[in-house]
């Protein structure tokens, strides 16, 4: 029921709305109170008041009031709209959509509500709903081009390309006079329509449209690229070749143009000379062109490759290009190319050192070639496919003799130490490199990262602090957070996890998770902005990109870390609950952890005091800023609440769901998923992960461990499960039949892979699971070190397992490892 107000109050109400829009919340609140004094149950005013309190940060109160407002006036679209806005502010988009829809039913003509609803729908990817909303909006204002384009976009996103094209054509046909040539919105819309035609696969029509409507399009490059692509797709090879030549003349560094040009030239696959000639032409035309000289290395083989590699390498090394190795390392997957490049670099170096004396006499400047060659070779022997760390170190040291203060050599040296496993020396060396150029942000970042790898978290933050904003209230960490510095959060989280600071580690991983949420939300503004600016092609790209944003390795890495940490939390909890006796073995750790926690507490108190002092100093004149600070203040800076969770597996699932959805091809994701679901006793979901992992790599050591573990668990649990679940499990879990002798199965596996340390670890783990005596398993780990070619990383893994078992052999194992790998910090 609408609730009438007197004239005076009506104008007051309008003032409330105006105040809200102008962000004069205090004044608005006052006016609202005034109305409510006379009409205490006026729904609209209550709703507006709720909206204002919400903006002031009192969300819970706002919600309570918003609900009350609805009770007072169920038939008011303002109340419903406000309710939707409150939900929207809480990011509960589904509820917000419902509220908006109710509001719209009461007031079908409100553009504002319709628009808010539409943006939420596209944000939630409810494309069908979005199409409806957009159609309604177009009907309301069909003279605005934006609305037409928006409807086309909605059809496009919903997958109805033909309809999208039809909308655009309809609009074009309704124009009386053609838009001006400099009309940017029109130019973009034409290219957008063209891309829709092409997406339907009708290249002839796309080409015709391009030639007729987009010939003089403002986006010249897009016109040229589309034209070349369509011609190639249509098999008009001669024209396509010409089109690609035009593109290459514009930009001779674009690898794609070369590839496609060669493709339409119809050169036989094995005719390397002809292919090379194409590139040579452009290399000659553009003396400084890199792509034309480098790209042939991708397809050349044998002597042709050697020849080309030699000329390319000497050119680059003569110039002293530091990125030469980075440009070529993708070729190293081919072992012939790997060896050849190494040999060519050696030859070059030999030639340089013999001719050194004469050369220096000829020209005054120091020759770059030798240093560059040494740098190349150091990287060559440091690269994982061609690794020989002794040699790498040798070349780095030679390089440092030649140019003692060269940043790149120091950096590579640090990297070599890292590969030795000596994080201590790596961190020191990188810091030395940093000191050579204090203004270089890149080396600063590298140094901080190496410090984190060496678990020097405080120092790393100090290092980074040299480049963060000085005046940010929370110190460097707050600035890194503001800047969404994901790599730091991840590395710091991993370091904290290694140090046993579970709370802080979780805090960092959650931060990464939240940053991705923010990125997801960031697109909200663009639903209106891009349309207004007419940049629809970029907008559609953005929407599609957002759908895949969590596929980024940044996400999968941090999320996997979090999941694994939660799993170990779960396991530890159960261990300490179950077997109290073994707790003292871990006593040392516990004491240390307590110490660390105490120190962290002290630090936090100190920081708080300092912050308070700073705030006190600023208080008189900068009252508002302090308010901001308190608002931003984290109520759980050390993640104590996170680590105190009673449901670590539930938390893990939160991370896991995104992983399984976006990165199912990563075997580590499936392995982690199995682990979590098995612990949660969700057997069907566990099986899903297991089967996916088996499809990815049936011989993976961890997958073997899990498959056997699954059968083992089923043997005892299957009968207690619901019959339908039993049926599914019986039908879908086929790798290890129920009648298998698991011990024998495992021994066979171990025998089959006895030369691979990771597989042996898995087999031993499995034996322990199947009830073998722990002592014998521990002994078997010692034998692991006798395997030929065992890596220190694998040994580290075994050591972790031993520690987890609280094994007495751990110390002996560690000592033995240290004697084998004296450089590895982790064993020291």
């Amino acid at each position: 029921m609408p609730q009438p107000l007197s004239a005076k109050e009506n104008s007051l109400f309008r003032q409330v709305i105006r105040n809200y829009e102008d962000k004069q919340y205090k004044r608005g609140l006052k006016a609202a109170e005034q109305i409510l004094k006379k009409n205490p149950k006026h729904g609209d005013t209550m709703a507006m008041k709720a909206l204002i309190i919400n903006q002031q940060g009192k969300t819970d109160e706002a919600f309570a009031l918003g609900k009350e407002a609805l009770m007072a006036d169920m038939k008011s679209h303002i109340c419903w709209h406000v309710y939707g806005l409150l939900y929207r502010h809480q990011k509960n988009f589904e509820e917000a959509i419902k509220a908006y829809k109710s509001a719209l039913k009461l007031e079908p003509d409100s553009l504002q509500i319709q628009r808010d609803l539409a943006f939420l729908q596209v944000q939630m990817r409810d494309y069908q709903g979005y199409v409806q909303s957009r159609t309604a909006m177009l009907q309301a204002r069909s003279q605005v081009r934006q609305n037409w384009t928006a409807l086309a976009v909605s059809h496009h996103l919903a997958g109805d390309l033909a309809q999208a094209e039809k909308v655009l054509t309809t609009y074009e046909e309704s124009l009386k006079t053609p838009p001006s040539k400099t009309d940017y919105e029109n130019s973009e819309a034409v290219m957008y329509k063209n891309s829709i035609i092409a997406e339907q696969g009708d290249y002839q029509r796309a080409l015709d449209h391009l030639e007729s409507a987009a010939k003089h399009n403002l986006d010249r490059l897009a016109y040229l690229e589309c034209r070349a692509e369509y011609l190639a797709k249509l098999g008009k090879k001669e024209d396509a070749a010409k089109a690609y030549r035009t593109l290459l003349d514009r930009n001779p560094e674009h690898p794609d143009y070369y590839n496609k040009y060669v493709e339409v030239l119809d050169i036989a696959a094995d005719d390397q000379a002809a292919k090379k000639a194409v590139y040579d032409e452009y290399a000659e035309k553009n003396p400084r062109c890199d792509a034309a000289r480098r790209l042939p290395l991708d397809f050349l083989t044998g002597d042709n490759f050697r020849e080309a590699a030699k000329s390319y390498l000497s050119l680059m090394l003569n110039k002293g290009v530091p990125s030469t190795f980075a440009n070529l390392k993708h070729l190293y997957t081919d072992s012939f190319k790997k060896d050849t490049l190494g040999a060519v670099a050696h030859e070059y170096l030999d030639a340089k050192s013999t001719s050194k004396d004469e050369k220096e006499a000829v020209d005054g400047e120091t020759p770059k070639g030798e240093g560059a060659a040494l740098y190349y070779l150091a990287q060559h022997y440091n690269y994982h496919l061609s690794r020989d760390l002794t040699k790498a170190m040798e070349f780095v040291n030679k390089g440092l003799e030649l140019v003692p203060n060269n940043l790149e050599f120091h950096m590579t040296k640090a990297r070599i130490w890292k590969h030795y496993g000596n994080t201590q020396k790596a961190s020191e060396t990188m810091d030395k490199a940093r000191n050579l150029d204090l203004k270089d942000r890149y080396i600063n970042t590298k140094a901080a990262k190496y410090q984190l790898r060496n678990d020097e978290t405080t120092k790393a933050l100090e290092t980074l602090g040299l480049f963060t904003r000085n005046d940010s209230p929370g110190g460097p960490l707050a600035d890194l957070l503001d800047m969404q510095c994901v790599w730091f959060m991840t590395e710091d989280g991993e370091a904290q996890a290694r140090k046993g600071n579970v709370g802080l580690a979780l805090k960092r991983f959650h931060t990464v998770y939240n940053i991705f949420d923010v990125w997801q939300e960031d697109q909200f503004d663009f639903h209106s902005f891009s349309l207004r600016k007419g940049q629809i092609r970029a907008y559609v790209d953005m929407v599609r990109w957002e759908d895949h944003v969590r596929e980024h390795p940044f996400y999968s890495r941090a999320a996997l870390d979090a999941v694994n940490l939660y799993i170990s939390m779960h396991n530890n909890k159960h261990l300490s609950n179950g077997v109290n006796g073994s707790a003292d073995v871990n006593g040392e750790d516990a004491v240390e952890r307590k110490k660390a926690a105490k120190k962290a507490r002290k630090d936090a108190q100190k920081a708080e005091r300092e912050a308070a002092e700073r705030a006190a100093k600023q208080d008189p004149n900068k009252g508002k800023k302090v308010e901001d600070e308190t608002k931003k203040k984290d109520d759980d800076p050390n993640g104590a609440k996170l680590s105190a969770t009673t449901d670590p597996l539930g938390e893990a699932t939160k991370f896991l769901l995104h992983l399984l959805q976006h990165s199912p091809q990563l075997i580590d994701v499936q392995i982690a998923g199995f682990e979590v679901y098995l612990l949660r006793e969700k057997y069907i979901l566990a099986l899903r992960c297991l089967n996916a992992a088996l499809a990815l790599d049936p011989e993976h050591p961890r997958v073997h461990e899990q498959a056997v573990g699954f059968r083992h668990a089923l043997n005892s649990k299957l009968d207690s499960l619901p019959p339908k679940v039993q049926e599914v499990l019986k039908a879908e879990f086929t790798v290890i039949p129920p009648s298998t002798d698991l011990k024998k199965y495992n021994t066979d596996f171990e025998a089959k892979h006895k030369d691979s340390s990771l597989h042996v670890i898995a087999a031993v783990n499995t034996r322990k699971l199947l009830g073998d005596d722990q002592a014998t398993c521990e002994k078997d780990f010692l034998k692991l070190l006798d395997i030929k070619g065992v890596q220190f990383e694998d040994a580290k893994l075994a050591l972790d397992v031993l520690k987890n078992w609280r094994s007495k052999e751990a110390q002996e194992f560690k000592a033995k490892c240290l004697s084998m790998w004296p450089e590895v910090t982790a064993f020291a």
Partner: protein
Amino acid sequence: MAEPQPPAIVEGATMGDVEDEVQSQTKSAEDRKAAAAMAKLDARDEDASSSHVDQEAASKALKNMRAPAAAAAEKKEMKKVKVEAADVALLVEELDLTKPKATELLKAHDGDAVAAMKAFIAV
């Protein structure tokens, strides 16, 4: 209705249209003028195109554009499948699904819980 409608409720700072914001945030007359000019800048195409558009043609075209409600019909057909509450509960429990999702999955497999679960875990 006795109560006059407010012009429009604009969402919080960043969400509303920039144009609206510019207008609402300005105070002095000069600012307002500048804002109006700026709004025009953005709205240039809007004004220009409205004169170009043949209103009649546009509205006629609009009528032809109703999207067929095929998708909705399909959904209705699905609804006919009867599902057991116990099966839904089983799927919710075993597959970590929400109730609507579980129901949908069951319906897609004619209410056969085993088939639904098998399909769900098929790689």
